[in-house]
């Protein structure tokens, strides 16, 4: 997200945000943009509530709109060891959620990359695990699939369900291997979740990139 500079949060009694395990390297210009966006969404209040996200017309078409908005208020994403749901978030929290979508930087080493990846995957895990019990159960998985496929009005519930079941069985086979006939697969834990993502480099896919808004290098 641009060259590392100190990130003063403009106009407000907010201390510089750094609740995550890695420092936020955003340029002050990008933070200002996000702050403007925050003010717009919150209608100049200091905090945002769930209703404020209704004012984004493009978000209506997203099938997992509910889950995305929910992710902003999920305390597990906002602070490392907390849980539950927040009613409203301030700009600091807004930035925290946005920072899950940072693109990788050139100068990251193995350990940082690994941590980075885990943070992003944890964000996704929380999106699936809606009852906060640390496991993705079959029902939760079904919910996600149904939501994703909700754009198709002709879709029967049965189809969505069977797709989810099939996917879940496959997940089980990756995580637990062969199961006995009376073994019940409880749900996908975070460790299993990590296993499933091995090989897929989400660091390069799950990010939003700012356009380079630095003053253009002079050519003379």
């Amino acid at each position, binding site marked *: 997200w641009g060259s590392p500079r100190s990130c003063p949060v403009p106009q407000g009694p907010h201390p510089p945000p750094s609740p995550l395990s890695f420092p936020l390297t955003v340029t002050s210009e990008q933070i200002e943009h996000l702050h403007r966006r925050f003010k717009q969404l919150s209608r100049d209040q200091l905090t945002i509530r769930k209703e404020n996200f209704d004012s984004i017309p493009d978000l209506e078409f997203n099938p997992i709109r509910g889950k995305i908005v929910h992710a902003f208020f999920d305390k597990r994403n906002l602070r490392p060891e907390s849980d539950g749901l927040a009613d409203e978030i301030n700009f600091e929290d807004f930035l925290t959620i946005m920072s899950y979508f940072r693109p990788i930087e050139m100068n990251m080493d193995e350990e940082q990359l690994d941590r980075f990846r885990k943070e992003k995957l944890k964000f*996704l895990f929380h999106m699936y695990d809606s009852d906060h019990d640390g496991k993705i159960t079959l029902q939760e998985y079904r919910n996600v699939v149904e939501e994703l496929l909700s754009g198709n009005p002709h879709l029967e519930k049965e*189809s969505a369900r069977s*797709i989810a079941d099939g996917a879940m069985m496959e997940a089980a086979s990756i995580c637990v291997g062969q199961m006995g006939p009376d073994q019940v697969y409880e749900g996908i834990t975070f460790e299993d979740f990590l296993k499933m993502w091995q090989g897929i480099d989400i660091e390069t896919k799950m990010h939003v990139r700012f356009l380079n808004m630095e003053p253009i290098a002079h050519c003379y």
Partner: protein
Amino acid sequence: MFLLLPFDSLVVNLLGISITVLFTLLLVFIIVPAIFGVSFGIRKVYMKTLLKIFQWATLRIERGAKEKNHPLYKPYVNGIIAKEPTSLEEEIKEMRRSGSSKALDTPEFELSDIFYFCRKGIETIMDDEVTKRFSAEELESWNLLSRTNYNFQYISLRLTVLWGLGVLIRYCFLLPLRIALAFTGISLLVTGTTVVGYLPNGRCKEFLSKHVHLMCYRICVRALTAIITYHDRENRPRNGGICVANHTSPIDVIILASDGYYAMVGQIHGGLMGVIQRAMVKACPHVWFERSEVKDRHLVAKRLTEHVQDKSKLPILIFPEGTCINNTSVMMFKKGSFEIGATVYPVAIKYDPQFGDAFWNSSKYGMVTYLLRMMTSWAIVCSVWYLPAMTRQPEEDAVQFANRVKSAIARQGGLVDLLWDGGLKREKVKDAFKEEQQKLYSKMIVGNHEDRSRS
């Protein structure tokens, strides 16, 4: 009536003299240096003077705005985040390809599918139409072109006069001058190459052909008042290679060709373009395709390969996003030029928009309008970086190689790495289309699932 006559002839005389003087100056200061490839440095002085004037103009606007206590506006044409324009299907395929080892032709639901929607959601939260246009900040600089000024109401009288003077200079002095030069350049190119074409093949012909091409391109460069800075000229493309550059405008060709001798690739056009193309190919082997041949990828690849393998032939100049001459679909050369297996010489071209915006929005302006806009700007200032040669490594495929070259160019030019996708130019996706995407996704998953359960 009698009184008018001597006055009349006086005016005519003056006109005649001034035109002669003008053309002599033109010849001495512009055409002759172009022929020999030297420069008096007039353009650099011109550029510095302009900069000083722009800074002054900006200060005036800022002062005016501060007095009235209004925020200034700086337009962000492209929004604050870079949106990937790939379609739903492509992205999901790509994600799956990078992950599981399953066959791609049986898509089922996978955990990674949620990425696409998640990211799209966050993108819309970060930035949509409303934020895209303006941001209240300090103006960098106003270049006295009304087309780039969004703060019109803060201009004082002095500034208006200056702007008016600018318009006068640009349209009444610079424009005719530039058109005359362009005309000279093009006609010299056509006649020169035709004449050289009659010579028997040999070193003499090559030598003359090279210099005719270079000379005419240099005249065209001066016709646009292009002030180009070349970096790392030791990496310039050599015979038997492919020169690959990022594509901002049709002027890219002129900029590159005035510093090196390349073989062009493109589709044959009718009209003036066609005349130029046919003349050029007489003097040296450019690769022109008929319209029907352009669609045939294998033919294109074959001809390019043949050209490249002949070491005596010139390096090919290609813009993998699509050449400016033929305007065919962008997909055509996308990885084609990287599959040929020749050495690739990447070149990064970066324009400075302060003096004139060189970007060609082909959906908004036609070629002629665009050229007129270029010729009525102050100047075109750009930097060209010649990057070290790259070859395809054994373990990468054409797409990966293309991406590698693309990032090298983007990094050097300070451009965003999504440059090749052309997404910056696309219009906003229509609402109905977005809904379609969702339906498409579910069809993709469900349809295939049903097929499988049926079979």
